[in-house]
C-alpha cells in the first residue's frame, strides 16, 4: 500500500508551500485518480513520490509497502517497484531507445536480485510488449524520445512501465497530447497492467482519460490539498461543474 501522511512540500529555496498536508492511501489492486486544475500540485506530488531533486519535504511521510520512500534515491525507489510515467519524457540524444530500455530493465532486475536478460530474451520481450502498444521497431532504434511525437513519447512511457513491471505506477498526465486513438491504445496498455499486486495513481486534468482507465477512487487536489474524495462518479461530476465548484472555502 502507498501511504502518504500529512505531506508538506515546497520548492527548495522558495517559501511557498506547494503541497500543504496531503493524506492519501492507495492499496494494492486499486487505481486511484488525482484530478485538479493547473498549479494545484499534481505534478509535484508525482515528482516527490519518484524522488526528484529540488523539492523539500517539510513535514509528513510517504511509505510504500511500509518502507520510507523519502529515504531512498530515485533508482532505489525504482528497484522497489516505483514507476513514474512522465508528463514530459526527457530526450537523450545519441542513446538508442532500445539501449535505454535494456539498460533500465537490467539495472532494475539486478537491483531486485534477478538475473539480467540476455540480448535474445530481451529482444523477444520488447517485441511482444512493443507490438501491443503499437510501438514500431523503427522508433526503438531512434534516440530516446528524440523527435518523437507526443503520442510516441507517451507510448514509450507505457512500454517502459510494461517492461519494468513496477508495483506502484504513477501516471502524470499521460493523456496530455494524445489523440483519441493513441489515448485508447495507451489506456489499454495501462489496463492490462492492472492487477491485485499493483497500485496505480493516475494524475489527470481531464475526466476523459478516466473513461478508459476506470478508477476505484477519485481525489480532487486543489491548492496543495485533497479537497474531496469519492468514487468514479466524482470525476463525472467534476466534468460537469468544473473545478471552480471545489474552492478552498467550500471544502473546509
Amino acid at each position, binding site marked *: 500500500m502507498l501511504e502518504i501522511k500529512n505531506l508538506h512540500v515546497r520548492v527548495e529555496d522558495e517559501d511557498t508551500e506547494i503541497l500543504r498536508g496531503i493524506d492519501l492511501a492507495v492499496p494494492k489492486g486499486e487505481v486511484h485518480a488525482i484530478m485538479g486544475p493547473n498549479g494545484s500540485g499534481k505534478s509535484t506530488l508525482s515528482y516527490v513520490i519518484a524522488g526528484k*531533486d529540488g523539492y523539500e519535504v517539510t513535514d509528513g511521510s510517504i511509505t510504500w509497502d511500509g518502507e520510507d520512500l523519502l529515504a531512498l*534515491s*530515485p533508482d532505489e525507489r525504482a*528497484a522497489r517497484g516505483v514507476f513514474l510515467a*512522465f508528463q514530459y519524457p526527457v530526450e*537523450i540524444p*545519441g*542513446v538508442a531507445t532500445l539501449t535505454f530500455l535494456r539498460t533500465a530493465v537490467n539495472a532494475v532486475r539486478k537491483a531486485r536480485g534477478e538475473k539480467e536478460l540476455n540480448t535474445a530474451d530481451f529482444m523477444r520481450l520488447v517485441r511482444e510488449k512493443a507490438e501491443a502498444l503499437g510501438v514500431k521497431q523503427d522508433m526503438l532504434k531512434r534516440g530516446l524520445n528524440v523527435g518523437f511525437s507526443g503520442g510516441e513519447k507517451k507510448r514509450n512511457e507505457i512500454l517502459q512501465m510494461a517492461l519494468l513491471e513496477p508495483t506502484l505506477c504513477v501516471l502524470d498526465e499521460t493523456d496530455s497530447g494524445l489523440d483519441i486513438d493513441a489515448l485508447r491504445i495507451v489506456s489499454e496498455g495501462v489496463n492490462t497492467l492492472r492487477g491485485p499486486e499493483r497500485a496505480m495513481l493516475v494524475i489527470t486534468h481531464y475526466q476523459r482519460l478516466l473513461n478508459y482507465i476506470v478508477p476505484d477512487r477519485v481525489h480532487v487536489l486543489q491548492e496543495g490539498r485533497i479537497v474531496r474524495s469519492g468514487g468514479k462518479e466524482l470525476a463525472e461530476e467534476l466534468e460537469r461543474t468544473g473545478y471552480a465548484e471545489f474552492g478552498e472555502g467550500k471544502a473546509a
Partner: protein
Amino acid sequence: MAAVPETVEQVKDLSVDQYKYGFTTDIETVKAPKGLSEEVIRFISAKKDEPEWMLAWRLDAYERWKTMTEPRWACVHYPKIDFQDLYYYSAPKSTQGPKSLDEVDPELLRTYEKLGIPLEEQKVLAGVEGARVAVDAVFDSVSVVTTFKEELAKAGVIFCPMSEAVREHPDLVQKYLGSVVPKSDNFYAALNSAVFSDGSFVYVPEGVRCPMELSTYFRINEKQTGQFERTLIIADKGAYVSYLEGCTAPMRDENQLHAAVVELVALDDAEIKYSTVQNWYPGDKEGKGGVYNFVTKRGDCRGRNSKISWTQVETGSAITWKYPSCILRGDNSRGEFYSIAISNGHQQVDSGTKMIHLGRGTSSRIISKGISAGHSSNTYRGLVSAHRKAVGARNFTQCDSLLIGDQCSAHTVPYIEAKNAHAHFEHEATTSKISEDQLFYCMARGLDEEAAVALIVNGFVRDVLQHLPMEFMAETQKLIGISLEGSVG
C-alpha cells in the same frame, strides 16, 4: 651487440659525478644520468646500436632544440619543467616500480577490476617489478603473436619496433623519418627527435591491404617504449592499414613527461586509419603525479586520393597537449579527425586538430566531443586552412562540449583561414550541460547516478564512438563511465 667504439669512448669520458647516478654498464639496470647533453644522446644511440646517420640526426635535433622555447599558448597550467632534472634513458627493465600489487594505488586496482583485466596484466600496467617477465612468458606461450607475425610477413607488411627498423630498414627510415614532423617542428618534437626511445614502424607495400588491425598490444612483450615514443607509418600506393594505439587500462608510469611523435605518410590512393585510446595516469585527486602528455601527431596525405583518419579517445594524463593533424597535399585527398576528450578531477586538456588543405578538391571532417567534469579544463583548438591552390577544398567541423557540474570549463578555439575563394568551410559548435531532468529520468528508471551519467555521455559521443574499431568500442564505453566516476553529486 657492441656499441660503436667511438661512443664507448664518449661514455668513458663522462664525469665521475654522473657515474655515481647509476651510469653502469650492467645491461639490466642501466640508466643514463639526469639531464640532457650531447653525451647522453650519444649514449642512447650507442645503447640502441644505431648507425652513424641516426646519431647525427639526433644530434642535429638536439642542437635545434637548444635554441627553442617551450610553447605557452595552450590553455594549460603547470610548473616550469626543469629539463636537466629528467632522465632521458632507462633500460627496458627499470627497477623503480612497486614491489607488488599491494603497493599500488588501490583506486587504480579497482579500475583494473572494473575493466576486467587479468591479474598478471594488471601488474604490468601498474609497473610492478619483474612483472613484465611473467607476462612475456604468458604471451610467448600463446601462439597468437607468432601467427600474427607470420600473416603479416606473408602480406609483406613490415611491423616492428622503430629501433629495429633503424637497423633493418634504413632506406625507408631515412626517407620518411622527419618528413612529416621535421626535427625543429616544435619544442617537444625536437626533444623527441633527439632522445626518442622507441615506438612502432609500419610499412605497407604498394597495393597491399594490411590483413589485420595493427595494435601496440602485440608489441607489449617486446620492449617498453618509454616516454619518448616515436612512430612512423607508411602506406605505399593503394595500401590500407588500420593502427590501434594504447589501451583502455590506466597505465602507471614513473615518467611524468611524455613527448611522443607520430608520423603518417599516405601515398597515392592509400589509406591510414589511426585510433588511439589514451589513459595515462591522471594523477591523484589533487592531480598530483599525473602524466604530462605533449604529443605531436601528423599525417601527410602525400598522394592523390589518399586518406588519413585520426580517431582518439583521451581520458588520461594530468595535461594533454595534442593536435593530430592532416596535411592534405595530394589532390582529392581526405583528412578526418574524430575525438572524444574527457577531463575530470584537475585534468587539463588542450587538444584538437589541423587540417591543412594544399591540394585541389581536398576535403576534411572534424567531429570533436569534449566532456569536462570536476575541476577540469577542456579546450578544443583547431585550424582549418586552405591555401591558394586548394581550389574546391571542403571542411565540415562540429565541436560539441558537455559540462558536468559547475566547477569545470570548456573552451573552443577554432582558427579558419581560406586563401582562395573556392573553399567551402562549415563550422558548428554547441555547449551543453547534463541536465538534472535527464539524470532524474534515467534514475527513475533504475539507473544509479554513475550509470546515468555514463549512459548520457555515451550518447553524446556516439558519432565518434562508431568510428572506433569494433573491439575497442565496448571497452571504451565502459572506460567513459569509469572516467566520470564521482563527477556528480
